[in-house]
């Protein structure tokens, strides 16, 4: 299990609890954790080293702002440095050239080139009102050209007619020729997947580049890529010359360190993100969101913003204090349920956290859904004030009344009471275990069941 960086750093700095300027020793201790977090996120080792050195330079001697802990301070410095390194918000595909503008799509086998070609074409057609032609230069993989042709039909974007046996450079030339004759604005050239160490095939794609002089040469890479990302990006950049990177499968739960690796070794901007298999699953690159993901904080930025909007700070603090004292009564539970609902229900909260896949399964296993939240709130609101403060008062007849009042059953009332008891027990345990306990039992342990 990946622990997120704030937790890791929390532990380091819990021991320090120092205020004032960050000392070199503080920073070193923190950076060891940063290094591990980045490596676990698949950032390539040489890139991690440079990055950590960069953070150190910025962090040593930095004044710790009064309202935050040293740990939060370092997280912020790391986060900001990461955002900076990842580069600016994407400006999308560059079309600043005389039409037809050739766009070359490159990458390893199976990285998502063909799908991404169609996604970009669809966007250029619908959003930018360009006349787009697509052509597949993949004469190698079985049914690759047919795949693009079908996607063309789905996107309602024309594809260059397939001529069996025609080699890639000839297809590229024919595509440009057709585009000139028929007045296309953009020509999207999908290529066969190739290994960056395959001399022959790299030579082939270099020949295509020479033939069409692409305005954009986009490396399409899988967000799940490991340490090899640096080798791939470097070789493609050296051999063909890249103008940008598109990361696919951002809809997965990989931490996506490859983004930083590739950006760092090529200096090329990350332009677009693939977020699904459908043709509209294309997003612009936002460095802060990818940074949060790499650091294992999920889309923490959005989560924090949303939480700040919806949870009244004071309420939350009061609740936390009561939890810590083990005074968690049914009023508190009701409060918690309400806040969960305000944040867009369980789905809304879960969607922003890392490792969602696993969590969603746990949640599904626990038969947890937002309807249940509503019913539980109804049960609690059918209780008297005293009952809410002292749930032990609730015996058989009271249970019947509450069930009738909330339109639920006695079993459901029992379940809620039991769950509240368990939560109380869990909180006491957690206070003993500290933060680690929460990590181990996961959020599921705290949720109504």
């Amino acid at each position, binding site marked *: 299990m990946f622990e997120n960086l704030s937790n890791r750093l929390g532990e380091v700095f819990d021991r320090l609890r120092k205020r004032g300027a960050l000392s070199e020793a503080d920073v070193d201790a923190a950076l060891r954790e940063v290094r591990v977090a980045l490596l676990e996120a698949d950032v390539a080792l040489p890139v991690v080293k440079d990055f950590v050195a960069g953070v150190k330079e910025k962090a040593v001697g930095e004044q710790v702002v009064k309202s935050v802990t040293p740990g939060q301070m370092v997280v912020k410095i790391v986060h900001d440095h990461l955002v900076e390194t990842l580069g600016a918000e994407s400006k999308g595909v560059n079309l600043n050239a005389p039409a037809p503008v050739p766009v070359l799509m490159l990458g*390893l086998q199976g990285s998502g080139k063909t799908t991404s070609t169609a996604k970009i074409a669809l966007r250029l057609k619908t959003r930018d009102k360009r006349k787009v032609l697509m052509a597949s230069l993949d004469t190698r993989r079985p049914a690759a050209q047919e*795949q693009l042709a079908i996607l063309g039909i789905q996107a309602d974007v024309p594809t260059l007619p397939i001529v069996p046996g025609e080699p890639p450079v000839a297809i590229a030339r024919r595509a440009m020729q057709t585009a000139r004759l028929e007045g296309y604005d953009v020509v999207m050239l999908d290529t066969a997947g190739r290994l960056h160490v395959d001399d022959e095939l790299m030579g082939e794609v270099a020949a295509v580049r020479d033939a069409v002089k692409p305005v954009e040469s986009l490396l399409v890479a899988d967000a*799940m*890529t490991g*340490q090899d990302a640096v080798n791939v990006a470097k070789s493609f950049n050296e051999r063909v010359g890249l103008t940008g990177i598109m990361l696919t499968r951002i809809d997965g739960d990989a931490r996506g360190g*490859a983004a930083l690796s590739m950006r760092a070794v090529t200096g090329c901007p990350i332009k677009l993100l693939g977020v699904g298999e459908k043709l509209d699953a294309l997003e612009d690159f936002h460095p802060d969101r990818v940074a949060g993901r790499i650091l294992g904080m999920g889309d923490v930025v959005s989560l924090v913003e949303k939480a700040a909007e919806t949870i009244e700070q004071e309420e939350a603090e009061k609740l936390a204090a009561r939890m810590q004292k083990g005074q968690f009564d049914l009023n508190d539970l009701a409060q918690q349920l309400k806040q969960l609902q305000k944040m867009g229900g369980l789905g809304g909260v879960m969607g922003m956290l890392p490792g969602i896949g*696993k969590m969603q399964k746990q949640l599904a296993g626990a038969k947890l859904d937002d309807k249940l939240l509503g019913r539980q709130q109804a049960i609690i609101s059918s209780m008297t004030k005293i009952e809410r403060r002292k749930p032990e008062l609730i015996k058989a007849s009271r249970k019947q009344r509450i069930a009738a009042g909330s339109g639920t059953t006695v079993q459901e009332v029992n379940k809620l009471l039991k769950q509240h008891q368990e939560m109380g027990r869990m909180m006491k345990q957690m206070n003993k275990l500290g933060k680690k306990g929460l990590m181990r039992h996961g959020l599921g342990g705290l949720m109504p069941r």
Partner: protein
Amino acid sequence: MSETETTQEAAAKRGWFARMREGLSRSSSRLSEGITGIFTKRRLDDATLEELEELLIAADLGVTTAAELTATLRRNRFNQEVTPEEVRAALAEEIAKILEPVAEPFELDPAKKPQVMLVVGVNGSGKTTTIGKLAKALREEGKSVMLAAGDTFRAAAVEQLKIWGDRTGAPVIARETGADAAGLAYDALVEAQRAGVDLLLIDTAGRLHNKADLMAGLSKIIRVLRKVDETAPHDCLLVLDATTGQNAHQQVEVFREITNVTGLVVTKLDGTARGGVLVALAEKFKLPVHAIGVGEGADDLRPFEARTFARSLMGLDS
């Protein structure tokens, strides 16, 4: 068996060991250069061990596994004068020890006819190609193989598998794109039983493990297969891309939970990706690794050999 056949076979065998080594040595050359550089006339001290650990990390072994392996080396060799060769060999041995228990070639069970294998994995990992390669290998052994085009989602996935069917002489059961994958699987199994084939290989659409609805689709395929043969599927092959980093852990974990994965194939080992995450996976999940993919062609499937893999990873000849 005639003598020429034996020689040919030997040549073929050398051929694919050599190819895998070739692929792997590309990936490990930097690694081994690194180690050679580090260890020439040096004592195995802390600094050396740390650099070594980093080299393992750079091969996707993961922070934890790299630390464990270096710790073992420290226990056994600390402060000894060691040559680069010795260190590499020792590390390769450690890695081989971890991998040996999972190196299990895929075997057909003659009692099951048809034996049913479901092939699953994330998008683009190499499922369809691996099916083509497996079909080729088994056809060459004289087995009858049928393919089911269970990827009814992706554009031209059916056509892709059909071409593999043509190449390998395996009939392909398919429906149009957009059809129900479970229904197709059902038909295919009925047809495979009727035809009495040895193996039915079922392709599935690539899916990310964190998508609950898509994973539920896999469960459905399995449920429906069991209506025809309650022991099916007999095998569930998870295809992993060697380029993948630490996310492979989550992939194995979730796919295993939902489909009861019985074995792994690691593809794209002909690149520079080292597939080092496999070491950690072997320790953690102990799932058999049936084969590796070393190219896009029908013949580019190799048995997974623990020692060869480990030694090649360390840049050593087998």
